[in-house]
């Protein structure tokens, strides 16, 4: 699903590359944690997958597309394959929960009939059936993040990318988010999640990729957050 071949990213004006000679592959259906300190290259890694940045050298394949050969006007096509979730939720404050989820479908041209079918299903998945008509400001942070996940997942993209999805949440709310992502993963969706949250990583026992100074220093199949050797 995601393959990096000898990828280096050097931002202009900087001496040290943000990522250097990274090789890795994430296959369909995997759940992968991306860990590392601030400045380790996590954000660059995600930005390269979303094609917000282009690598200085190396080849990146995402969802069957060679990003180096992807024309600008084909970028939206790539992003339709990627559901993205962020630390700050990025919900639309003046739209209700169900309108926020429906927004993705609307802008991608789904018919009202399809939308009417999808929304209740998504609300049920994230457990917010009874809050469909609330505004984001009227629900908790954990609930907001579940809405954001529903919005990312409603188009059923093959890959979900979550950048610190629990970064703003209390541990007990984070558990709910992780259960949700785990469930989406079980339905066959590849999940790549960047995180600082050691508790979650230790608990989930999924594949862990650790970056440090732009290098992959660890790639463990059933890893924990802190490297124990």
């Amino acid at each position, binding site marked *: 699903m995601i393959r990096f071949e000898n990828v280096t990213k050097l931002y202009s004006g900087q001496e040290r590359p943000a990522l250097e000679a990274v090789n890795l592959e994430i296959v369909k259906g995997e759940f992968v944690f991306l860990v590392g300190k601030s400045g380790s290259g996590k954000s660059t890694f995600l930005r390269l997958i979303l094609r917000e940045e282009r690598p200085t050298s190396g080849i990146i394949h995402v969802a069957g597309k060679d990003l180096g050969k992807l024309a600008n006007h084909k970028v939206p096509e790539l992003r339709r394959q990627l559901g*993205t979730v962020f630390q700050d939720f990025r919900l*639309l404050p003046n739209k209700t929960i169900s309108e926020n989820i429906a927004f*993705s479908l609307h802008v991608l041209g789904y018919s009202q009939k399809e939308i009417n079918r999808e929304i209740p299903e998504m609300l049920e998945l994230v457990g917010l059936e009874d809050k469909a008509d609330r505004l984001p400001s009227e629900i908790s942070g954990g609930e907001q993040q579940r809405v954001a996940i529903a919005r990312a997942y409603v188009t059923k993209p093959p890959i979900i990318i979550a950048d610190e999805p629990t970064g703003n949440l209390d541990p007990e709310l984070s558990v709910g988010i992780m259960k949700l992502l785990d469930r989406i993963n079980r339905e066959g969706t590849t999940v790549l999640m960047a995180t600082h949250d050691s508790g979650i990583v230790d608990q989930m026992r999924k594949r862990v990729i650790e970056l440090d100074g732009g290098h992959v220093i660890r790639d463990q199949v059933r890893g924990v957050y802190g490297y124990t050797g």
Partner: protein
Amino acid sequence: MRAGFLLKEVRIGLRRNLTMTFAVVVTVAISLSLLGVGLLANAQVNAMKDYWYDKIEVSVFLCGTLSESPTCAAGVVTEEQRTSIKADLENLSVVDSVFYESQTEAFERFKERFKDSAIAQNVTADQLPESFRVKLTDPTQFDVVVSAFSGRPGVDIVQDQRSILEKFFKLLDVLRNGALLVGLFSVLTAALLISNTLRIAAFNRRRETGVMKLVGASSWSIQLPFLLEGVFSAVLGWGFATGLLSGLKYVIDDRVAPLLTFTKFFEWDQVWISSAILLGVGLFVSILASAITLRRYLKV
């Protein structure tokens, strides 16, 4: 993106930015009206030219007792000269018709024109020159008559009424150009205002456009609602401008035309043609301003 959702987004956008929408509509209305006034001024000048050029004639004055030009040194025009001048005039291809005005007829006309003035009492028929009044098939071909007849024995002067009118029309041309220039500048201002308004709108809705990019909307579908907002404001402004121009035409027909009977005024046709041009200008300018702004501020 379906039309229903698109229109809903456009409506929300216009409403949320209501004061700016209002400013854009009013600016577009005023600037298109100014440009429209320029276009109608042009139509009016053309209408006046048609009207006057159709009536004007070239006068070939023959030597009389008071003539002073060198060609009249031999004295009053002879019967033979008069006949040959008339024959030659009629033979010119640019000449439509020739009408002879004798001294007596000139005197009658003079008395008619100055009937309330003391001048008429001091003039006698033999002081006025006899003349040929020539109507041309094409009034711009006046030079042909001048070069053929001025300097010819028996001809005093060749006078073209067009040359008098031309000074007047030159003045009108300047006024018309000024009106068009003011119109163009205000249209440019409107374009800049549309551009700035969309920039603010794009900034205000950066969350929405951010999410749209995220879920993979094409840049076209991200920009379209903004583009339609610009176009909607421009079309609404155009509607008001057309209303104003129609009002102007109505006032001219109703109040001005009865007072100024010496000229024709532009027709309703001209109002509709100007309105169509304004619609074209309005659409072109708003689409261009929107496209340039959105390309800069809403890149995927």
